[in-house]
C-alpha cells in the first residue's frame, strides 16, 4: 500500500523545526497527488497534516507561480515573459503556442492535454526565451521551435 499524503507530509515535517515550516514541500506533494493542481480538498489535507488553517495554505499556494489553484492539463507549458525573455521575443513564442494549441495563455486545450501559461522569471535569463514543459526547461526557444515542442506533447 502506498503511503497516504498525510504520512508523506508528516515524514517531511520531521526535517523542519516546526510543522508549518514544511508548507512548501507539503503543498508540492499534495499537488502531485491531486493531478498537478490543488483543489480545496488538497488544502484541507495539508492543513490537517501541518496543524494550520486551510486559508493559510491558500495564502501560500496562491503566492507562488508553481502552485496551481485551478485544474491543469496533463502537460504544462510555461513561457517566461519576464524582462530578458520579453526582449528576446517571448511574446511571439506565446502567440505561436496559442496558434498551435488553439487556446489562450492561461487556458487548457479542450481535450485536457495541455495547459499554456505565461510565468515570471524561470531563472534562465542567459538563455532567453525559456519555456518550461512539465517543469523541464527548453532554452533559447524561438517561435519556430514551438511546432516541434507541441508535437512531442502528443494528443
Amino acid at each position, binding site marked *: 500500500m502506498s503511503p497516504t499524503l498525510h504520512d508523506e507530509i508528516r515524514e517531511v515535517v520531521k526535517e523542519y523545526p516546526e510543522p508549518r515550516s514544511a508548507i512548501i514541500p507539503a503543498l508540492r506533494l499534495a499537488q502531485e497527488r491531486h493531478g498537478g493542481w490543488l483543489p*480545496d480538498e488538497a*488544502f484541507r489535507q495539508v492543513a490537517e497534516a501541518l496543524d*494550520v*488553517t*486551510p*486559508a*493559510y495554505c*491558500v*495564502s501560500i499556494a*496562491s*503566492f507562488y507561480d508553481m502552485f496551481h489553484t485551478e485544474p491543469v492539463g496533463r502537460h504544462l507549458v510555461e513561457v517566461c515573459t519576464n524582462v530578458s525573455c520579453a526582449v528576446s521575443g517571448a511574446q511571439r513564442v506565446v502567440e505561436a503556442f496559442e496558434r498551435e494549441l488553439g487556446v489562450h495563455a492561461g487556458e487548457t486545450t479542450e481535450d485536457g492535454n495541455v495547459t499554456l501559461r505565461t510565468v515570471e522569471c524561470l531563472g534562465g535569463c542567459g538563455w532567453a526565451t525559456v519555456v518550461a514543459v512539465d517543469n523541464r526547461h527548453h532554452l533559447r526557444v524561438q517561435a519556430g521551435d514551438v511546432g516541434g515542442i507541441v508535437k512531442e506533447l502528443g494528443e
Partner: protein
Amino acid sequence: MSDLVKLTIDDREVEVAKGTGLVETAAAAGIEIPVFCYEPRLGPAVGACRMCLVEVEGMPKLQAGCTLTAQDGMVVHTASTSARAAEGQKGTLEFILVNHPLDCPVCDKGGECPLQDLTFRYGPGSTRMTFPKLTFDKPIPVSPLIALDRERCILCYRCTRFSSDVAEDEQLIARNRGAYSMIATFGDEPYRAPFSGNVIELCPVGALTSTQYRFEARPWEIQDVPTVCGLCPAGCNIRATTREGLVKRVQSRNHPEVDGGWLCDKGRFTFPHLRSDDRVREPLVRGTVGLEPVSWDAALDRAEELLRGAQGKIVTALSGSETTEIAYGLGVLLRRGLGAHSAVLDESTSAALDACRAPLSTIGAAELVVVVGDDEVVDRAPIVDLWLRKARRAGAEIVTIGARGSVPAPVGGAAEALRDLAAADSELGGRLRASDRAILVWSGSGGGGGARLAEAAHALGFEGKPGCAVFHLPARANARGVAEAWAAAADADEADPEPIGLLVVSGDEAAGDPSVRALAERASTVIAITMFHSLAVGWADLVLPATASLEREGTAMNLEGRVQRLRRAVTPPVPDELAWLSKLAERFGVALSPHAAVVFEELSGRIYGGLLLEQLGEHAGLPARRPYEAPEPTPLAHSPEANVPEDHFVGTLRLLRYTPLFSGHQVERVPELQFQRPEREVALSTVDADRRGIATGDLVSLRSNGTSVELRARVDARLVEGVARLADEHAAHLHADVEVVKA
C-alpha cells in the same frame, strides 16, 4: 536620563524615550505623520501602504516613517517641510486611489474614513486616471457579519495581520500577490472566529463593513455613548453608536489595561437582542389563560401581595448580570424591607483576590501563566484569551491544567491542582514562586474558584510582586458586584427557608438556569424579572420586564475588581428596575432612590471604599491591592457541580458540559450570529474514540438514565481520557455518566 533620545522633526526638537516609534514621536511634537497600515497593536510595522514617507537626513531615499524608531540626533522632515516627502506622499496617495472607486457618498465609512480624511489633507484635488478602474463582485460575504467591497481595499494588510498575529485564527488571508492580491477566506467558508469583528474597525477604508451597520446611519447623525459591555466578566470598554433611539453598532473604546482595543464578536454583534420580538414590554400576571398584561399599578399591587404572602420565606435567584445598583436595590427591598436574606448566585467570586489584583494587561507582560479549570478561557472571558496569546507571542510559557490542558487533569480537578501548586514540592509551583511575572487564572465552574485562587496566590507569595496576579473568570458579568451589593444591603444571617413561599428570579441568566428552575419546583409562587417571554412562560405568577445592560445606568465590577460605569445608550421600552424597585420599597417602608447615581453613593461607602462616580471617568482605574484576608466560605457559593459522583461506571464516560461563548439568551436572538454557535458534536479523547471504533464525523449516540442524544463525534487529541465534552445546549437532560456508542 540616558533612556531619552533627542531628535529634530520639522525643525522642532523632541525628546522621547529610546525605542519610541517615529509616528508617536512626531505626534508628541504635535506633528502628524499620516498612516494607513501602521497599527502598533498588530505587531511590528510592515510599511505596506507608504503613506508615512518622510525624509531623514543622511538617508538617500524617502523612508517609511512607521518602520523607524527615534534615534539620537536624527533629523526628520515630514511632508510639511520637505518637498520630496510631500511629493512622495502625494504620489503614494494617487497610487492608492488608482483603483479606489471614490464611492464615498454611498460608502458606510464615508465621514469617518482615514482614506477620505488623508486624501482631503494630502491628496491631489483631481485624478489623472483615465482608464477604467478594477471592479469586483460586491459585496462579498466574508461572513454573515462582515461584508467585503474588494474594490475599496487598499491592501494595507491590517485585517490579515489581525487574523494571523493577534487573534491567531488565520482565517482571513491575502490571496495571490502584488497587484492581484485580494483579501479572502478559504473558499466560500465564512470567517468564523471569536474576534472576527475587529477587522471592521481596523479597516482604514470602507472595504470591510459590518452587515448590521451597512446603510443604517451616517456619521453626522449618530451619537456614541461610552459604556461597558455586560456580556462577560471582562467588562470591555465599548462605544454604543445610536441613531434615533436605537443601538446601531458597538465598537471598542480601547481601555489599554482591560481590552487593548479589541472586542469579541459576542460583545460587538449581540445588541440586536434589544429589539427582539419576544421582549417583555409590560408586566404580566398569571391569569386563567396564561400570562396576561396588566398595568404597572396592578403589577406592583400583585408584587406586594406575593411578597407579603410569602411571610419572609423568600429566596432570591440573582443572575450576576445586574448592575451593582440593581442588586443593591433588590437587597434593600427584600432584605431590609422583608427580612428575606436568602439568595442564590451561580459562581460567586472572592474579595480575597484583591490582594493580588492587577490589570489584565499584566498578562501580556508575563513570563509564566498557569490556567487551571476545564473551560476554555475564550468561552468565559474572551478578551483574556487575546492577552494570553500576546503573552505567548512575547515568549511566555502558558501551562493549562484541565480536561483539555497541556497538563491533563481529571474533570473538576482545578481546586486540587491549585493545592498541588501551592505545595512546597511542586516544580511548577516553585517556578511560580520564583517568578516576578507569573499569572494564575481559574477558568472553570464550581469549587469556589475565586477563594481557592486567592489562597494559592497568597501561598505562592504573589502579593508583594506587582507583576504577579490572579484572575478568576466567573460565569456572570458582574458576579462580584452583585454578590457584594446583596451582602451589603443588610446585616443579617441567611437562613434557607423551607418551604419556599416565593422565589424572586432576577434576570435572564437566573431564569434560564436549570438549578433555579429546580428551586422553583419547590416554591409556591414565582416572580420573574426577565427580558424575554420565552423565559417567563410556564412558571411565573408575576413577570416584571427587565432591561439590558446597554439600557442601564450604573456600575459593575469586572473580574479584575475594577469598578466601571455603564451609561444608558438607549432608553429602554420599559421602566428600569430601580424605578419600580423604589416604588415597591416605599410600600414596605424602606427608602430606595430610583436614580442609579444616588444608589451608587449609598453603596459606594459600603463596598467600593467610598469611590465617587466622577472618579470612575471614561477609563476607570484599578484600585490598589488590599491586604490579604483569608477568604470565608461565601454564603452565595451554591455550586451546581457539587453533587457529581466521584467515580463512574465501567464503560461510561464522564459528561463535561461547557457553555460556549456564542450561546445564551442574547445570542439566540441575533440571526446573523447563529453561524458562530458550536457544531452539534461531542468531543472524545483519542483513546476513548479508538476503543469504540469512532472517528471524527461519525454519528454517535450518548445515553444516560433512559435519555439519549445523537450527534457527530470529534476526536480531540487534547482531551483527557474518560470524558465526553459537549456544549450545554446539546447536552439536553443527559446525566453525569454517559454511554457513547456509534449510531
